[in-house]
């Protein structure tokens, strides 16, 4: 891709300063968001989210496993992100690994909470079948198909949509088992359990360009950023995680300001996303 010329850079920066960006949005407006659920029938839950030219897929697969000895009452959740070379030739071979790892770690931090599992969007105790013996392991995979900035927000939205689409098979446990044996389980084909996804946060990334900050930056705008703060906020307005990227330092008061703006923006985003997910689920059932 050809880098931006001086004129284009001025145009982007000037537009942001005047609250009119090059695609006609205001500083705090998201691009239209499209959600499609059930795109991967082989997974337990999946969703595709498009934000302008950014296009990501998230899938959820559940496998029966054994909880770790330290936390016998909790299931395990892992998030992996992969950047497909279709999105940009630079992701070819191992080129996308760095970005993939950065995104995976940021998503884990923002959605899964700390090591103790406190503050997680998904309650890990709900994944336990038999305490200390059997639990569900959730594997959440994200795939970036097309990239035009703001991957983190799009991935978080896709994961939220995929989890609302997820049905975990109901498990019956054979009653008579001795305490030292692995219990026998019977996975039901018909009954599925849904997750409570109301607590899953969304991520709002504020990108600082010049003296202002914007949401949902395109890749052209991201190339002009000095730093970016990704804040995950849940429906109650609690902050669930925070990541700062970019080399330039930020004033602490600006960060607090950004957080309050993100909280405000997230309310609209959650409402928009919930209605899109509901619409996608409805259209999936119809077809």
């Amino acid at each position, binding site marked *: 891709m050809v880098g931006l010329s001086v004129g284009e850079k001025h145009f982007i920066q000037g537009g942001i300063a005047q609250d009119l960006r090059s695609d006609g949005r205001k500083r705090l407006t998201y691009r239209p968001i499209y959600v499609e659920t059930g*795109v*991967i*029938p*082989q*997974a337990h839950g*999946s969703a595709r989210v498009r934000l302008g*030219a950014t*296009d990501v*897929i998230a*899938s959820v*697969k559940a*496998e029966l496993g054994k909880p770790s000895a330290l936390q016998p009452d909790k299931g395990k959740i892992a998030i*992996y992100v*992969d950047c*497909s*070379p*279709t*999105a*940009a*030739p630079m992701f*070819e*071979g*191992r080129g996308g690994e760095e970005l993939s790892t950065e995104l995976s770690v940021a998503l884990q931090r923002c959605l899964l909470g700390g090591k103790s599992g406190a503050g997680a969007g998904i309650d890990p105790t709900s994944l336990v079948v038999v305490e200390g013996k059997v639990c569900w392991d959730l*594997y959440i*995979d994200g*795939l970036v*198909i*097309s*990239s*035009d900035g703001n991957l983190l927000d799009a991935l978080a939205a896709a994961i939220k949509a995929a989890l609302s689409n997820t049905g975990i098979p109901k498990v019956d446990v054979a009653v008579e088992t001795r305490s030292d044996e692995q219990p026998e389980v019977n996975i039901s084909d018909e009954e599925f359990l849904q997750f409570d996804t109301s607590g899953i946060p969304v991520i709002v990334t504020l990108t600082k360009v010049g003296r202002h900050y914007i949401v949902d930056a395109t890749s052209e705008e991201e190339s002009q950023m000095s730093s970016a703060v990704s804040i995950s906020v849940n429906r109650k307005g609690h902050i669930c995680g925070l990541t700062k990227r970019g080399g330039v330092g930020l004033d602490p008061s600006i960060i607090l300001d950004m957080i309050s703006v993100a909280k405000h923006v997230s309310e609209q985003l959650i409402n928009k996303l919930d209605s899109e997910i509901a619409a996608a689920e409805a259209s999936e059932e119809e077809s």
Partner: protein
Amino acid sequence: MEYVSPEGLRLDGRRPMEMRQLRAEIGTVAKANGSAVFEMGNTKVIAAVYGPREVQNRSQQINDQALVRCEYSMANFSTGDRMRKPKGDRRSTEISLVIRQTMEACILTHLMPRSQIDIFVQVLQADGGTRSACINAATLALADAGIPMRDIVTSCSAGYLNSTPLLDLNYIEDSAGGPDVTVGILPKLDKVTLLQMDAKLPVDIFETVMGLAIEGCKAIANYIREVLLENTKQLEYRRGL
């Protein structure tokens, strides 16, 4: 195991000579020069083409023709059991090579010397016949990118189970251990560009199975041509012509 019932139906309800449902969509990756999604039943792949552009690695530059490169990758969730495979395992490398050689044969590479064309295929769902689906998707993406080609390439597979030739094997039939013939053809020029088979098969039956796969390729070619023409019509319409 019985793969064809006495009534002549396969496990997924198809007839032996029946193909899975095809679906194609052009222009799904906005940033690429050309892109397409191709579905054969539950198998779903995305292809994106970047180029022709300047050669990134000067030592690979070819002075009288374009350099064609291909990378095949599978999404973690594409298979039934989730697995985290390292990128670039031997199977992916082999398929990348097959796709590259097949596409190189149809691109008019001599028109674009000292340039590079990248083809990236990403498998979203694997249910047998990924090789064929990737080639079909790559053809569509190349045509969308406006890269000059001798002809479109289409590919299809056929197998032989329970003494019946079967068209377009799905995953269960593919893993049954029977022969699996993958054919790629240039339909208008009537030439075979790709032919692979595993397991053993008598010569006369091989002929029928290959003939069946070629018929499948031709049907796919007709579908791809329809999609391309429809897409061009749409674009012209949007331009207001």
